[in-house]
């Protein structure tokens, strides 16, 4: 038996951690987009990821689309769900308090889960990896090409979003809506469409994450909740509203889980990630990259 040297194990844990971390980062980014424009935490974000995976399975397996069209069709379908959420639910509850907004998004996530269970049933589904299954052996460490795809997808999304929100007019307009919707309206920003766009964008990114991870993790109707929880943890750890923060915090969370599973106890890996999060909340509530003043000013 080729018993691989200790070094490789460390690397293997790191690789596993980065793959999982990239998934959490993508979900966290979804939270940040909506939070940036509306200060709402959309607890149904995990469900967008699940729907992305399942729609991709539907388009690829049942309708026979090749991989890329299935990916785009899934992203479009889930973006439509985001649109429905904003148009018929969030817009109705504009004056809701923070608490009832949390409840509304939780209720909507239960609705999505029930619907997915009806359409796709309760079994797990799988997508073929984007570039062939199996793994490459690189000095004793097995790398799944699909993991690289997940990293690539999250990396490009963070880059595009950072540019979009910092460079483009549309992006700045969206940010303006969060800080002061009234002032944004005064200068002619169609706040409603901005919010509308943010939900569609966040849903689309959630879907992209869902499609990218399904070949690795399989996807089933109730997989969204845990992903949503970890993604929200990463978003808070990285500083609500910070894209770069979300990416780094997601990777940190994934690595922490993987190393804890490897060296401490695999049963407690989720607990370690959450303890990390609680420490961040108690001692640095504005997150690793957030600014204290900005966090303080946000309306709660």
């Amino acid at each position, binding site marked *: 038996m080729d018993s691989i040297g200790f070094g490789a194990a460390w690397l293997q844990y790191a690789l596993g951690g980065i793959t999982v971390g990239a998934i959490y980062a993508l979900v966290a980014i979804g939270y940040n987009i909506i939070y940036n424009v509306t200060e709402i935490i959309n607890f149904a974000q995990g469900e967008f990821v699940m729907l992305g995976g399942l729609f991709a399975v539907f388009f690829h397996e049942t309708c026979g689309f090749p991989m890329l069209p299935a990916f785009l069709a899934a992203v479009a379908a889930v973006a439509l769900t985001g649109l429905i959420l904003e148009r018929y639910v969030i817009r109705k509850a504009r004056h809701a308090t923070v608490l009832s907004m949390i*409840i509304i998004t939780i209720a*909507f996530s239960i609705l999505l889960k*029930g619907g997915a269970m009806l359409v796709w049933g309760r079994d797990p589904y799988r997508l073929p990896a984007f570039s062939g299954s199996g793994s490459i052996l690189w000095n004793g460490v097995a790398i799944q090409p699909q993991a690289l795809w997940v990293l690539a997808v999250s990396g490009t999304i963070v880059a595009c979003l950072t540019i979009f929100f910092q460079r483009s007019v549309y992006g700045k307009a969206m940010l303006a809506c969060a800080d002061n919707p009234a002032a944004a309206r005064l200068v002619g920003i169609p706040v409603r469409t901005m919010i509308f766009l943010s939900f569609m964008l966040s849903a689309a990114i959630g879907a992209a994450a869902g499609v990218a991870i399904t070949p690795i993790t399989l996807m089933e109707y109730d997989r969204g909740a845990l992903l949503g929880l970890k993604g*929200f943890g990463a978003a808070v750890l990285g500083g609500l509203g910070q894209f770069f923060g979300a990416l780094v915090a997601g990777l940190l969370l994934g690595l922490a889980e993987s190393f804890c599973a490897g060296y401490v106890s695999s*049963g*407690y890996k989720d*607990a370690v990630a959450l303890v990390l999060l609680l420490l961040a*909340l*108690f001692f640095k509530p504005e997150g690793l990259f957030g600014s204290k003043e900005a966090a303080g000013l946000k309306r709660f």
Partner: protein
Amino acid sequence: MSPRKLVPIGVFAAFMAAFPWIVAPFESVSHYTDVMVFAGIFCLVTIGLSLLMGFAGQISLAQAAFFGIGAYVSAILTGRFGWNPWAAMPAGAVVCAAVAWIVGVPALRLKGHYLAMATLGFGVIVHIILNEEVEWTGGPSGMVDIPGLSIAGTPLLSETAWYYLVWTFVAAALLFSYHVLHSRVGRALRAIHEEEKAAEAMGVPVASYKVQVFVYSAVLASLAGSLYTHYVTFLTPSSFDLMWSIRFVLMVVVGGMQSLWGALLGTVFLTFVGNEWLQVFADFEVLVYGAILLLVVLWVPQGLVVWMQERLRLRRAADLSRSE
């Protein structure tokens, strides 16, 4: 309390006292007493949560964790160390109070989403510990043969006996909470919810009051846990996971956060919806459950009971104006 208010409460209390006898003869609803025992246990949790969330305005997604700590402490003390259940119950409450205080002090400095996340994180950690510490809690395969409860020697077996025991606890908690709300402490809690800055300036030690009401809700949840343990005599960590914390919050929100009766009726309503009335939908059950919650929170944000109270007040005002 003004007599005008006492009449409906008296009628409600009489109905609740006679409930097992009213239900027994009718074949199709005779098992409602069983459901009411669980509803009563959940009411203990949601009364505490109503004070914390509805009146003091602090969200908590950790109530199922305190419910679980109370249950497991009681189970371990009675099952493994042979304590008398009536001694284990307060012990569980003390443990929960201590844990709530340790978590509450740092967590309640936070607000809104951050507080929700902190309590959510704590709840999930407790669930993981219950799952992993197999030699103490029996882990995921659960803990078996926990002794039942007996009063003055006679073991409580029948559902009716449990119904009265549980709902006596609920009545006591309701009375205690009602008194707290209609006192300087209750006013301080409501002041914290409405304008924290002003409450602090008026001399209300906001931080310590938030923690006190958080500990109070944890103690009630612990008592509920102890009752649940001795009623079901079997525990599995999955009964105390995040989904149950969310259900408790939904019960308070759907019933109505601005009144204790809201928490009570919201709990009974959702317990029956969840366990009874939705069975007929089978596969569609989860979908319908989500739809009901969404409609209630969207169209009746203040909650069903508060909405009914407003209807009553409006109608009474309309009668008054007509009669003048």
